[in-house]
Each structure stands twice: as structure tokens, then as C-alpha cells.
């Protein structure tokens, strides 16, 4: 039952906020904030109790309610270590998103908050769904509110970016729908059990000629969401044109749904096909890392630059997932969480700079450290996280991914390590063009408010904590890895 509450609270909060916004906008914002905060409290307390039990491998919570028994569809929610971590991340970034929109969104605030909260509900549903039909439902549920958030409350080029985002993710989702239905039939014909239920499907993975096609269907949906090279071109436009809150959620959470889908569904349901596909996926991952990093350095728009870094980092995640060993997969999980925090923080900073200067063009920025030292300091810190400085979360994740990949494919790992060099180039360029150098345009900007400093401070503390003490993450996520190995062993592939 608590899982349904986790999903429902943001939705209820959104509706209440929408109603409240007719009269009192401030109250509406607080309601939305409170809804996310409740979710954070619930999920963190679940984590603490899970931890006190010593991170057992069983599911933390589960809820099954039959929905359409005729077609094997049930309302099946479940939470294991990986989804718990992602739910916590969702609640946290949800708070950050609402807080960042405090001053930025001034028109139709109620609609905005409703969209944002529905979006969060959709994302939470994606992380918790254990029935493929339900999963697809939440997957599509994520798209519409995001479309509105970008298209209505975004920046200059918002409508085109929103449409592009929607078309990319929706069409790829259709491939997944075909695959889901195909899986239903193939599995049914093979075992006689026609169902959409994830654990049941997991118990007897599909092999044979259809497995590769079905796996590809899933892969395309998740690869576009991740985004993997070469399906990444929707990301820069969507991230740049979205309002700050939208970018934070987009980069911090929606991209992770792609990674989550790969780990939860694409890999365990089709272990043989995935193992055969792995070399291609590794190449795509490496390409994404390098391509994203090189392109980042050429951007002229502050926000677009930050958006492209996501392409590069998600390349590491793709690499880690398909490397096929626990080392790399744990690295990918840590990278997912660290990237959510560090890129979320960078987008918050972009938003703060844009609110103050009115521009995102790097030609006009520069020398901001002198007027707002905190923006300087935080930008530096999160840029260092982006470039993978040890001691911050991203490094541990990326290093483990490369270490794990090296055991499997040294060439891929070595080429991907070049990403370290290129990431320094773009990260330092980012810092140089925005906060260092002379203050050419003589900006004299207001200081960071308490709200802003608190948001950034919390994220900074988290990224440092993840870098120096990531062990809890590894412990929590370990059980999820074994699922992949178990299903692989049933098919006889992978050690």
C-alpha cells in the first residue's frame, strides 16, 4: 500500500496545488513542496529500515492487485534496492525542481505545479511498476506533462523542442509497446502462461528467433530515453528550452528511467540476446562518451553545454550496463545517482545565472565569481564533478565502469578513458567562460538567496558524500544485480 502512496502523493499534491493556485500561489508552491518532501521522508525511512536489516536481497515492499486477469494484467508494484535509490533521488530532485521554480515561474503556476507533480508520479510509477502493462502506462504518463512543461513554460524555442522531445520518446515507446505485446504472445506460446507480470516472465526468459527482436524493441525505447548515441539529438533542444525545474527533472530523472529500464527489463528478460548485442552497445556507449564530450566544448549556450554533458555521462552508464560484470554495473548505478545530483545542480546554477543576467550566451557571461562568489564556487564544484574528479560521486561511478569494462573489452575501456581528457576540456571551458576571467559586461548581480544556497549546499554535500562514501549505494543496489545473473544463468550465458 505504501508504494501506491508514494506514487499518489505527488499527484494528489499536484491537484491540490492546482486548486490552491487560483487563490494563493504561495500556498500552492508550499503544497507541492510538501508533497515531494513527504515522499522523501517515506522513501528515506524505508531505506533506513532496509539498512538496519542489513540489506537483505528480498523485495523491500510489494503490492499486487489483479487488474485485468483475462489478459494477465495486474497492478503489481514492487520496490527493491535499485528502485528505492531511484525513488529517493526522484523525491529529492522533485523538491529541488519545485524550489527552483519559486521565482522563475510566474504565470499559470497552478498548471505548472500540476504538470510537475504528475510528471513525478509517472516517474515514480516507472520505477516501481512490476507489470509490463503498468510499466508502459507510467512510461507514457511521463511524457505528456513533460511536453506541457517544456512547451508552455519553456524558453524561446520551446514548442519545437517540446514536439521533438515528444515525437522521439513516444515513437520509441511504441517500439517497446510492440515488443511488450510480442513478448506476451511469445512467452505465452512457449510456456502456456499469457501474462504481463514481470516476475513470471523473468522466471522463464525467452529464447529463440524472436528474442533478439523483442529485446531490440525494448532497447530502442530505453536507448532513446537514455539517450544513447545516435538517438541523442532530442536532448540538447529539450534541456535547453525547458524551464529550470523541467531541465532538472529531465536530466536528473527521466534519463535515468532509460537506464533503469535497461537494467530491470531489457537485460534480465533477454539475457542471451543482450549478451549477443553487448558489443554493439559497448561501441554505442563509447561513441556517446566521446561524441558528447567533444560536442560540449563547442557550444555557445551555457545550458546547451550542460545538456550535452549528459550525453557523455550516460554513455558511461550504457557502457557499465552492457559490460556484463557487477563491477561495471555498480559503477553505472553510482553514476546514475551522482549524475542526477551533479547535473541537476548545474542546471539549477544555469537557472540562477539566467534569472540574474537574462542570458545564457557565453559571449556575455564571464567573471561572475567576483560578483556572486557562491555561484562561482558551486559552478566549479559541480563542473569538477562532471569531469570526474576523485572524491566526488561521478568519479567513483565512471572509474568502476571503466574498470569493469576493461575486464571484458580493454579496447573499449581504453578509448572511453579518453573521455576523461575531453571532459576536462569542456568542464574547464564551462567554468572559464562563466565564472572566471574578467567581468566584461560589468555584471553586478544579487547574491544567492537562502533558498538557493540551501539547494546547492545540499546537493554539494551529497555529491561529496557519494564520492567519499559510496558504499551504502553499492550495498543497496547489490541485490538487483543478482537478478540479472540469475536469469542469465537460466539461459546458460554469462558466468
Amino acid at each position, binding site marked *: 500500500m505504501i508504494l501506491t502512496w508514494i506514487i499518489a502523493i505527488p499527484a494528489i499534491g499536484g491537484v491540490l496545488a492546482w486548486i490552491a493556485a487560483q487563490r494563493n500561489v504561495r500556498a500552492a508552491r508550499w503544497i507541492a513542496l510538501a508533497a515531494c518532501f513527504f515522499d522523501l521522508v517515506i522513501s528515506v525511512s524505508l531505506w533506513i529500515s532496509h539498512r538496519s536489516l542489513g540489506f537483505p536481497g528480498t523485495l523491500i515492499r510489494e503490492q499486487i492487485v489483479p487488474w485485468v486477469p483475462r489478459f494477465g494484467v495486474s497492478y503489481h508494484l514492487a520496490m527493491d534496492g535499485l528502485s528505492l535509490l531511484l525513488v529517493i533521488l526522484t523525491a529529492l530532485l522533485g523538491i529541488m525542481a519545485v524550489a527552483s521554480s519559486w521565482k522563475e515561474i510566474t504565470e499559470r503556476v497552478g498548471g505548472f505545479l500540476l504538470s510537475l507533480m504528475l510528471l513525478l508520479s509517472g516517474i515514480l510509477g516507472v520505477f516501481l511498476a512490476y507489470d509490463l502493462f503498468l510499466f508502459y502506462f507510467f512510461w507514457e504518463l511521463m511524457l505528456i506533462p513533460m511536453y506541457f512543461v517544456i512547451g508552455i513554460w519553456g524558453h524561446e524555442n520551446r514548442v519545437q523542442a517540446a514536439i521533438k522531445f515528444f515525437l522521439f520518446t513516444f515513437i520509441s515507446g511504441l517500439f517497446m509497446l510492440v515488443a511488450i505485446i510480442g513478448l506476451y504472445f511469445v512467452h505465452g506460446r512457449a510456456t502456456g502462461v499469457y501474462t504481463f507480470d514481470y516476475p513470471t516472465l523473468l522466471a522463464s526468459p525467452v529464447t529463440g528467433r524472436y528474442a533478439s527482436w523483442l529485446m531490440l524493441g525494448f532497447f530502442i525505447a530505453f536507448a532513446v530515453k537514455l539517450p544513447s548515441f*545516435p538517438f541523442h539529438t532530442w536532448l540538447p533542444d529539450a534541456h535547453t528550452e525547458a524551464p529550470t525545474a523541467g531541465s532538472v527533472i529531465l536530466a536528473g530523472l527521466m534519463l535515468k528511467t532509460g537506464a533503469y529500464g535497461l537494467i530491470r527489463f531489457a537485460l534480465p528478460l533477454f539475457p542471451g540476446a543482450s549478451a549477443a548485442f553487448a558489443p554493439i552497445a559497448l561501441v554505442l556507449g563509447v561513441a556517446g562518451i566521446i561524441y558528447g564530450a567533444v*560536442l560540449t566544448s563547442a*557550444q555557445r549556450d551555457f545550458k546547451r553545454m550542460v545538456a550535452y554533458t549528459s550525453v557523455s555521462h550516460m554513455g558511461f552508464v550504457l557502457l557499465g550496463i552492457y559490460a556484463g560484470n557487477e563491477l561495471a554495473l555498480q559503477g553505472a548505478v553510482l553514476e546514475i545517482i551522482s549524475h542526477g545530483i551533479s547535473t541537476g545542480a548545474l542546471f539549477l546554477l544555469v537557472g540562477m545565472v539566467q534569472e540574474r543576467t537574462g542570458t545564457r550566451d557565453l559571449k556575455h557571461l564571464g567573471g561572475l565569481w567576483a560578483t556572486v562568489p557562491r555561484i562561482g564556487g558551486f559552478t566549479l564544484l559541480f563542473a569538477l564533478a562532471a569531469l570526474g574528479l576523485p572524491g566526488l560521486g561521478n568519479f567513483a561511478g565512471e572509474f568502476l565502469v571503466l574498470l569493469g569494462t576493461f575486464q571484458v573489452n580493454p579496447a573499449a575501456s*581504453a578509448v572511453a578513458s579518453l573521455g576523461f*581528457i575531453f571532459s576536462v*576540456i569542456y568542464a574547464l571551458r564551462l567554468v572559464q567562460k562563466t565564472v572566471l576571467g574578467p567581468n566584461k559586461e560589468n555584471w553586478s548581480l544579487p547574491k544567492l538567496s537562502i533558498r538557493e544556497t540551501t539547494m546547492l549546499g545540499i546537493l554539494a554535500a551529497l555529491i561529496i558524500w557519494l564520492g567519499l562514501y559510496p*558504499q551504502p549505494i553499492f550495498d543497496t543496489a547489490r541485490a538487483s544485480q543478482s537478478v540479472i545473473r540469475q536469469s542469465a544463468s537460466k539461459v546458460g550465458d554469462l558466468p
Partner: protein
Amino acid sequence: MGDLLWTIVLIPFLGSAILAVFGAFMPKKIAGTIACASIGIAWFLSIIVAIRFVETGTANVPLYRWIYVNGLHADMSLHLDALSMLMVGVVTFVAFLIHLYAAQSMYAEDGYSRFFSYMNLFVGFMLILVLAANLLVLYLGWEGVGLCSFLLIGFWYKDIKNVHAAQKAFIITRIGDTALAIGLFLLFREFGTLDIQTILSNAGRVLPFAGATAAVIGFCLIGGAIGKSAQIPLQTWLPDAMAGPTPVSALIHAATMVTAGVYLLARMHTIISMSPAAQLSIAVIGTITLLYAGFSALTQVDIKRVLAYSTMSQIGYMFVALGVGAWTGAMFHFMTHAFFKALLFLSAGIVIDSLGGEHDIFKMGGLRTRLPIAFWTFLVGSASLSALPFITAGFYSKDEIIWAEWSSQLGSIWLLAGGLLGSLITAAYAFRVVFLVFYGEAETEVINKPGMLEKLAVIVLSIFSIIAGFISLPKALGGFDPFGRFLSGVLPHQPAAAGRSGLTAEEVILALSSTLSILGIYLAYAYFKNRLASEALGLSPTGIRVHTFLYSGWGADKLYDRVFARPYKALATWNRNDFIDKFYSGLGALARYANHNLSRTQTGKVRNYAAAVLFGAIVIAAIVLLR
């Protein structure tokens, strides 16, 4: 002792954090005191640890589980042995003196507390680097010091040139760091762990001697080392790094960070020895660099750039020592170099500050009488750098290396020749500066005089630049070597080549290198006395070309710019709008094109629709009837 060790490491971080958060709200005197106190306490504690270490021996001190994943077990832990004890001692001592100096010299600067926050952070990371028990912790310290170098070179960030210099440093060292990371991956694959002591003790069993794996690992480690230590081909960042404040140059780019590469190779000596190819290349790189840098230093005009190239050159010597297996010799030279190079930078800093920010040695002069303390200390430093016989620390350490170049099994006549030529040039460029700056006519007036703390720092360093050599005398002079014995538990002794060792050979080489040093000083004197003639020579067409070539670091910057920087920028800019997007826009264009053309069938005219219906009906009828 474990707790003390962790305290030594963590106190600088604490100091840095306090200064970062509260620095803006505290008066400069308090900030300076906190900064110096944190390093001072660390130094004091390191003395206590040293005493205990002598009694109890090596220690392994884990703090907590950092990363425990299937396969990789990496604790956040420290390892204390003779080598790391030496490094800790030197680092904290020199850092303390430099902090005292900087507390006074940076007093007038904006961002005083920010400066010391970075400096303390640096010392913290450096200590982590040298005390790391596993390679992952070492890598943490390694990148951390690189970060602080970036922050401190670009301290005066309002001038974009400083930011560029800082970026250059970070990017180039990152190239080395990536090589090191690949080395780490290889080591993990072969050994299943990143714990240093485990790797070193199992190296013989796991890696075939002189095999490909050992060579690749060796080259990766070397790659990391040359990036950090500014050896060829990753050397171009060091001269530009002089854009930072002088205490930064003294601490980071002379005494400590740049020697991290030397420490890494010394620490991983067992692996390096497994691959003669790799080890030889260390010696070759060292020799090439020491000559490259020495010649470049001869032409430099900015006093700090001379010292930067000098550092590059002296680290080249350390690399040669590593390459011929004289591990202890390399560490000895590291120690003496830390003293005299920091000294040189600090007293150069006194000169620069006293002249109101003048860096050009041709605009100095006659400061012997006006800045006596700077003169005497700079003289001592230069003498030590030039390895002036018997009375300077540099003599003993450099001599040990030059001897090893000849006598070691891995040595050769070529390495010896390179080392000897290098000492000649070293003495020449060092004393060129001495004569130009302190003798002759005064071109610029003295504005300030050095303060108490600054004087204290340079005087103490001068004393050590003289006496530090006496703890390791060559056999020809008695063989009193407590230093070598101290490190003997950690660093092995490379056996000498047959027929090349022996007292006479040693005495000959001793005499040879001493003569060359003095000859070098004389050359500098001759140049100075006959300045007009020398300058005329320099103005001839070949002279100008040679001079420009050497002055620009043998054109390395231009080369790298053309081969790497410009193509990369061009590629990135050309693809700015992501050519892959064209594919998707193409899809959209296709859809629009199809729409445009298909909608032309909707003419709005009933006749056309009727005709279409008719046509369709005929076709269907035909299909049905003719089936």
C-alpha cells in the same frame, strides 16, 4: 600511531574547509594563522610519527571501507613506511615554511583566505597521495593535487591569461592521469586488487619478466608520472604555470606536486623493474628533458620561468636516477631539490616583490647590496642547484645520480654524458641569473623590503640547502649514509655493473662533475663580464633563430597547438550543431514533403473526387471479376 597519521592528513583539509566557509568573515591575520597553524601542526605531528616510526616500523592504517564491490576491495587507508615517511616529512616541513612566507607576502591580496584554503587543500591531497595504501586512494590524491594546482595557478582569475595557464596545466596533466588510470585497470586485471603492497610483493609471480603486460603497465605509470612531473612530452604546462603567485610555484611546482611522478615510480619500483624497456625509457626521457630544459633555461628572461625550466631539468635528473635503478638517489635528490628550489623561488619572490612586481632579470641588477638576505639565500640556492662541490646539499645528491648513471647495471656512457653536460648547463643558467640580478647596475629601484616571516623561511631553507646533503656521502668521501640505510627497507639497491664500479672511477667522476659545475659558473661569469660581446653574438641571424627556438621551449607550444589544439577546436566547432541531427530533421523534412505533395490530391473539386471514386470502383471490380 594510526590516529596520528590520519590527523596529519585531515588537519589540512579541516583548515581548508574552515577557510573556505568562514574565510570571508574573518580578519586576514586570523586566516593566515589558521592556515599556517594547520600545516605547522601537521609538521609537528609528523615529527612525532617519525620518532614512533623508527621504533615500531611500517604501519597500515585503514579508516573505512571506501569501495567494496564484487572484486574490488578498496579501503580508505594509509600506509606508512620509510619512503612515505620521508615524503611526509619533507612535504610538511617545506609547506610549513612556504605558508609562513606566503602569510606575509600575500597579505595585500584580495582573496587571502581563498588562497590559503586552496593551499591547505593542496597539502591535504599531497599527504593522501604519498601515504596512500592503495592505488585508488593514490589516484584521489593525485587528481586532488592537480585540482589545487589549477585553482592556485588561476588564483588571479580576473586575468584570462592566468586562467588559460591553469587550464593548460590541468588538461595536460589529465592526459597523464588517463594513462595512469589505464595502468590501474591493467594492474587490477592482473592482480585482482589495487593494494600497493600486495601488488609489489606479488609482481614477480604474476607478471612475466620483460613481458608485454609489464611493459604496458610500466608505460602507463610512466605516462602518469611525466604528466605530473612535466617531463617530455607533457612538459609544456610548467613554464606557463608560473602565472600563479610565487609561493604556489615554490610549493607545488618545485617541491611537491611535480615530484609526485617521481614518488609514484619509486613506490611502484618493483613493477618498473619488471620491464627493462619501460625503465630504460624513464632514463631516456629524463636525460632528454634535463638537456631540453637546461638549454631553454639559458635563454629565459622571466626569473620564474628560469626556475620552472630548472625544475623540469632537475626532475629529469630524478627520472634518470629511477631509470638506472638508483631509487634512493632519486629520493635524495628530491629532498635536496625541494629545499633549494623552494628556496630559490621564495627568494626570487622577495626580489620580485621588492621591485614592485618586476620579473624581467634584465631589468634587475645591483641587488647584492640592497637586498642582502635575498642575495645570500639566492646564492646558496643557486650553489646547491649547481652542485657546488662539498659545501652544498645539491652536490651530494646530484653526484649520487651522476655516479649511478655510469656505475649501475642499467647505466651507460650516454646517460653519464647527458648528466655531465646537464650539470655544466645548470651551473651556467643558475649563475647567469645570479649575476644579472644581483651584480651590475641597478635598473629598477627597490620599493619594499622583505618581512620577518619571509626572511625566516628563506634562511631556514638555506641552512637545509647546505646541510641536507651530509646524510648521504659517496663512498669516495667516507660512505656515511644514514639516508640510504633508512630507505633500504623499501627501495632496493641496484647492483653495479661489473668493471664500472670502484673507488677510482667514483673519484674520477666526482672530480669531473665538480669541475664542470665550476666551469659552468665561470661561463656565466664570462658571459656577464662580456655582456656586450655576448649580446652581439646573440643578435646575429643564427643567434636570433637559436635564441628564439630555445626561448620558446624548442617550439613545443606551437607544435602542440598545431597538432592537437587547433584540430580539436575545429572539429568541435564544425560539428557544433551535431550532424546526426540532420538525419532526424531530414525525417521531418521528408514528412513535410510528403504532406505537401499528398495534399495536392485534395483539390476541393467534386469532379476530381468523383473521378477518383470511379477509378477505384473500376479497379476493385476488375480485381474481383478477374480473380
